[in-house]
């Protein structure tokens, strides 16, 4: 479990980082916390020639939490967000979800933006981005663009980020004061990848449910005035729409059942 040879570039500015990944193309990988990438490098699942380490870029160390929501730069760790004094007040749902992201040790290194870019279908941060309707800002030599979660999240371990783009920040909008929310995750052990993770937000008669771990990317469904009696059918429809995959931890059916059962409990709790 030793990685193949690679060079590492530690840029001093975002401009430099962006120039480097543009020049290297497919051969470059951006590394921030390395909590997924290092393991993949060690197993030689990926053999980039160049690692561009953005973890020390002060420009990307922006962390703003306020009434508008959370804006997090690419070098901000999950732990820094988790321990931010204003998180519980403005973005309690993020705090709840972050507690399920890996373990204390991995959160000390892992970044929120890194998790979004890695796009593991079970990961909590992509799920929250999708459920809250957040955005991701990508920068390249030719400028920057901001994509909505649904534009950004294209599939299993895949995003709309182009090879020459660097994810510089993400924004998670806060919920209206009137909104109610809930988060539930089923995993084999504490801190494991979610078998199913769900975030639910309800406001002004609209129920929005984000589901991770079942489909290839977070799936968000919205219902206008969801009567309690209609919840089982609505969730069954969603479950079948997502399908789900078998793996050694759980069957596809089990995943769909969790959507039906835990989803129902979650929605009912949020609406209560």
């Amino acid at each position: 479990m030793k990685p193949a040879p690679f060079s590492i570039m530690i840029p001093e500015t975002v401009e430099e980082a962006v120039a480097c990944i543009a020049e290297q193309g497919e051969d470059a990988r951006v590394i921030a916390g390395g909590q997924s990438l290092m393991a993949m490098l060690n197993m030689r699942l990926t053999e980039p020639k160049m690692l561009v380490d953005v973890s020390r870029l002060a420009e990307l160390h922006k962390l703003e939490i306020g009434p508008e929501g959370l804006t997090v730069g690419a070098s901000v760790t999950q732990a820094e967000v988790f321990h931010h004094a204003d998180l519980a007040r403005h973005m309690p749902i993020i705090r709840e979800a972050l507690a399920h992201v890996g373990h204390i040790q991995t959160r000390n290194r892992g970044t929120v933006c890194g998790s979004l870019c890695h796009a593991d279908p079970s990961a909590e941060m992509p799920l929250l981005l999708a459920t809250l309707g957040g955005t991701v800002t990508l920068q390249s030599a030719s400028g920057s663009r901001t994509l909505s979660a649904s534009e950004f999240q294209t599939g299993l371990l895949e995003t709309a980020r182009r090879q020459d783009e660097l994810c510089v920040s993400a924004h998670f909008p806060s919920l209206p004061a009137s909104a109610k929310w809930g988060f539930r995750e089923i995993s084999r052990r504490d801190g494991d990848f979610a078998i199913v993770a769900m975030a639910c937000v309800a406001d002004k008669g609209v129920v929005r449910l984000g589901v991770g771990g079942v489909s290839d990317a977070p799936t968000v469904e919205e219902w206008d005035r969801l009567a309690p009696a209609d919840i089982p059918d609505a969730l069954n429809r969603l479950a079948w729409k997502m399908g789900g995959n078998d793996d050694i931890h759980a069957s596809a059916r089990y995943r769909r059942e969790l959507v039906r059962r835990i989803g129902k409990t979650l929605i009912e709790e949020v609406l209560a």
Partner: protein
Amino acid sequence: MSETREPLVGQTILRTEDQTLLRGKATFMDDIPIAKGTLHAAFLRSPHAHARIISIDASAALAMKGVHAVVTGEDIRPYTKPLIVGFKNPLDYRGIALDKVRYVGEPVAIVCATDRYRAEDALKHIKVEYEVLDAVVDPVKACAEDAPVLHEAAGSNRVSHRVFNHGDADGALETSKHKTEITIRYPRNSVTPMETYGIVADYKPDTGGYDVTSNFQGPFSVHTVMAIALKIPSAKLRHKSPPNSGGSFGSKLTMFPYIVVLCVASRLAGRPVKWIEDRLEHHAASSVAPGRVTRIEAAYEDDGTVTALRMEHYDDHGAHLRAPMPAPIYRMHGLSTNCYTIPNVKVTNNIVLTNKCPTGAVRGFGGPQLYFAIERVMNKIAKELGMDPLALMEKNLIPAGSFPYRAPAGALIDSGDYQQVVKDSVEQGRLDWLRERRAKARAEGKLYGIGFAAAVEPSQSNMGYISTLKTREEREKAGPKDGAVASCTISVDALGSVTVVGDSTPQGQGHQTALAQIVADELGLAFSDITVNLETDTQKDNWSIAAGNYSCRFSPASTSAAKTAAERVRVKMTKVAGRFLNVPEEDIEFTDGMIRSKSNPDNALEFRRVGGLAHWSPSSLPDGMDPGIREVAYWNAPELTPTTANDEINTSLAYGFAFDFCGVEIDPDTGVVKVDHYVTAHDCGTILNPGLAKGQIRGSFANAIGAALYEEFVYKEDGTFLSGTMADYLIPTAAEAVDPVMVDTVAIPSPFTRLGAKGIAEGNQYTTPVCLANAVADALDYEDVTMPLTPSKVFEWINGGEEMPPPADIEKAEERLTVDYSGDALRGIGETFVPAPPAKVWETLLDPAEMARLIPGCKELDKHAEDHFTGTLRMGVGAVRGTFEADIRLKNMKKPESVEIAGTLDGALGVSRGTGWVVLEEAEGGTTVKYRYEIHLSGTIASVGGRLLSGAAKLLINQFFRALVARAAPDSAPRKGLLGKIRSKFGGKQ
């Protein structure tokens, strides 16, 4: 022993080992300095479960910078003989593949390079050509006539078949009014240590021998196996162990095949060779406990008296037998009736080879498998009789006062009071309260169950038990094997300092602490006066074939040897002191660092002065006494006799007792089994150090929670290995390991060990998995409880049958791309619409230039024939990228209707073999492309990517068909709309 102070044995004394460990000062295997020029090894491993090796070409690897040698099985062959096991057989196993590979992860070649990075770089430049063969992973199926045979020389995968009759179980079952049966499947699991295997091997041209430092937990009888395999006198195989261990739990007994191949690699490379096993290697190719299928039948009477057991075991040993395998099943043979007075037992042992990692020692060593079967059938009998399971167990428990008790299969169970242990447990563990709790939970509609389990806990294995698998005639020919020799050496130096050297090769248990307690008591010294060194060096230490760390041998055996050696030191020093004190030897006591007259305590000498005399003034010693003080004790127990003519065997020396009960609650919505209340009791005889004993209980319990709820090495039916990482093979962490209620109960000393101690380290491996299984069976009223109790599986038991169907207006499931990875292969089925006529689609599909554009990551395909293409492609999902050689063959072409596409992708990340069946049907405005495919994945990508495999396959198939649409009908519709349609059919986001 000193009469003026409490003996140290029996007290909780903090472990001396922990000062080093907790300060980060330990020297583990990888910390040991190595000689300049030492090469680092990396193993090329088989991606296939079963294949013939056609050729190996290492020339490109050898040409790489820093690579000194590439060693294959054929290179090893001239310097070795096959590694022997406990019975005659034609298997040729030398630690590395020779003509065939037989499991995923089997070593195929060793690269020796100046560092590990370079060694691993070179792996992918070794070209191996394989002929893939069918694999078999189920031990019962492996015995079928038409099963693929792993070792042709053996003729069958069933390499040993023995039937044992103790009493008349067949007769009892025939005539019994009541009988029952149950089939259990015990999964493949292990107890994974933090520290993996590590070896430095160095060929010594001067002696023709090898010096090895490794964290092998022997030397054990396996040292002999290695020396024979290396064709050298055993004295020339020097083995040393590092000062500290990062754990083993048995796994490090089976690293010896690696020692053998690395010895030869060192000889061929001309330098010492070092190898530290990585986690992927450890999971795929170190050692696991044998999985087992057991059909167990029982005969019983109206009152619950069990009169007979009959069981047939299919013990799954993976691809090779490695000494001391198949020991686990024979280690338990004498205990085939567990703690019960069942007079008749018949046992059929099938030792079976399958295309999986070979087996080895794992904490519990055969006990978990056997007791799972016995305790499940006892539970079933109780249920059939409507009896309380505990009442049934008590009805059959060996009565107090009948020890030593000779069990029908030969175990001489030395001591115990099982009834008292149960009584203490029921009281302290509050069984009445637990029953009320269950009643209350059930009244609230909850799924709540109570389970019980009991086990005789064997310790110190009889070195002769493995001979039980030979027939009587074979045994008579081979000569007797029995006993279990333990040794200890104690020296007193010129300043009176005491050093103890033992043969227990500890793996973290605290042996240094316990031995210091024993020796300090015997010599009247302080705990801190005793220095214990348990590193081993086979050329300098005293040891015998039982030496090492396994099967709870420390508490009965190593302590007895230490006690004996300490007594000899005491006897010698008593004689020396007697002369100076002028008192008879009976009047002398050792206390508080003094050797004094009991009748006149002022008449005393310091211990260190007496010790010093033996060195500084030999002339002062009694006539005929040797100078110096260094006493070696070899200790053996006469009760460990050879297997009898009737195959009865006293498999172990001392037998403790473990009894557990528990309450579990199961969440009907998630299938999660929550351990609500757990009670465990152990009689391990004399408790040497309660702190160490509790540590063993907690550790074994945590392991057992892992076995019951989380751990399994998963293989697909085609032999693909799926549990490569710690994200796939789940072990309990601090969050999952609850603390059990530990019962304060009897400690009945073994009459057969010097201190009365019996083992305790494995008890919960025996009781806890089946105790939890019995509780789950009780909660769900479900019989076929198999471990691990994963939520997904338990959910099926609760909510079997059909799930809620999809709503009528949603697309039918079969119309979408669905992927199923529950069988032997990854299978998918789907369809897509292409707005182009079938002829056009056909053309696109079968033209190599066009097909190259369809296959993700493929630039070009070479056409060798109408139906045969090859090419290189670089494909992947997300950051995961690999380069693969593609070989595609088209079969059963019916233009323009259907075609079968068979292909192989081969690369460093793994190998996949697949077939796709494609049918084109004309539809309005275009063609409906229906397809199904079957993919066998193997190698790294399957073993580490399991969680995402189905999704990744779906993604790549999607890419293929998206490209097909784009190529076959470039202008037919706006690109976005088309993609949207296909994506929705594939169940992706809108």
